């Protein structure tokens, strides 16, 4: 049996920096966590395996942020949404490459991984991903 990487946020982002969206799957009950958890909320097992999640989904809800935090101010106004991935998983992110009035709930989006190199182990420096129309 191959050694599994730790089911941590840091490892989740290490996978993101490799262009992979990975979740932690409970080996006992099958529940998938994105991001991973050290323990399963459903069955309390601590036995997990990493599984790759298809980086695409449907837009569930969105907002256009006009008043932005300092580090995002140059982008404002920008759109943020939550997408529905496979297996009932969801993630939030910024939506790019689409005019704001063309954004519609239910539209297909794909996850794009930013290529900026960061040292994931140096908190808080995580690679970013965003969504764009599929």
């Amino acid at each position: 049996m191959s050694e599994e990487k730790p089911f941590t946020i840091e490892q989740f982002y290490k996978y993101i920096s490799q262009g992979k969206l990975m979740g932690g799957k409970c080996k006992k009950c099958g529940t998938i966590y994105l991001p991973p958890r050290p323990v399963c909320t459903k069955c309390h097992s601590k036995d997990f395996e990493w599984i790759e999640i298809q980086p695409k989904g449907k837009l569930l809800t969105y907002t256009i942020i006009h008043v932005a935090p300092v580090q995002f101010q140059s982008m404002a106004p920008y759109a943020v949404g939550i997408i529905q991935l496979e297996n009932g998983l969801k993630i939030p992110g910024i939506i790019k490459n689409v005019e704001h009035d063309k954004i519609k709930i239910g539209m297909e989006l794909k996850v794009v991984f930013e290529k900026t190199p960061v040292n994931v182990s140096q908190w808080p420096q995580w690679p970013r991903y965003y969504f764009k129309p599929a």
Partner: protein
Amino acid sequence: MKGKPLVSIISAGLSKFGKLEGLYGREIFAEAVKEAFDRCPNLNPKDIQALFVGHMGESYEHQGHTGATLADWTGLLHIPATRTETACASSGAALRIGIFSILSGLYDVVMVGGVEKMTNRTTPEVTEFLAMASDFPFEQWHGITFPGLYALMATAHMHKYGTTEEQLAMVAVKNHHNGFLNPKAHMQKEVTLEKALSSRVIAWPLKLYDCSLITDGASCLVLTKPELAKKYTDTPVQIIGTGQASDSIGIYERESFTSLIAAKLAAKQAYQMADVTPKDIDVAEVHDCFTIAEIIAYEDLGFCKPGEGGRLIENGETTLEGSLPVNTSGGLKAKGHPVGATGTAQAYEIYLQLTGQAEKRQVENAEIGLTHNVGGSGATAAVHIFRRE
């Protein structure tokens, strides 16, 4: 426990809410404590055996260790003084712990309360501090602001139920009207629907008038065993139900974006303990950190069916003259939202209502009241039910 009083409130205090220049958090809390003692001449500071206080952020005043700080500045040394933190529900949690401390049998009289000093900071700083109540590595890191989280709920609610931006603005109009009647409110002015709707966008569909205020303020309550209450006052208010629950820190993992599970669970616990139903509630203070939050609160608390919150406000049911007045104080929207103080400030308004001291905002014959206090984007909720004795 069903329907039995858990504790009695024998006094309560609230500082002025607003931009309180020249006053630090501990001094603002002292103002609330002074009122609580002034209201209840039979109560001696030496009667208070423990202090539990809600406070969200040490960043504002570079001051943590809030429990002892507040005891020190309010003449309550050397009682045990403990801070609770559940984001914007911090003093809702303090109230609960105060109730437990009385029920444990260890104490006869305790003070609970909360404080936040916020206006000494710039808006971008406050925005950043408030965002700490949401998930950092998956929400804040990806550009999602605190108003942005509630905007995601608003968009989902509008899409699923046809709730309108006008209905959101009606919550602001109502709460500003109530705040106009509350001499302690931060914003004591009316706002028109047109003005609310045309205010600048913060996080679409939420505009400036959909958001609560950055406010300084403090609140406190004095609790005792129900059988001791009449020793202190002729008009105690009983707490007959308490509930609290948690949910995922990130909203994106939740099954629904149009309801807060933690609030529903907390309400269920409180209703069952109090042995009352939503129909029995005469007046409620709910957590309107954003207008959509009040509409969702109506639904989560069972004041209407899921999806009908927009119509409830549109039909005027929750105005002062309506069948179930909500946020008679002006709510977080107009009274203000000094986050750590909010939970017990809501209880303060219910205390006034149930003792007939709410003046121009008085709901006639109010007998049973409810408070609904939410932490962050709903990862914590605390609900309490009160009864006039």
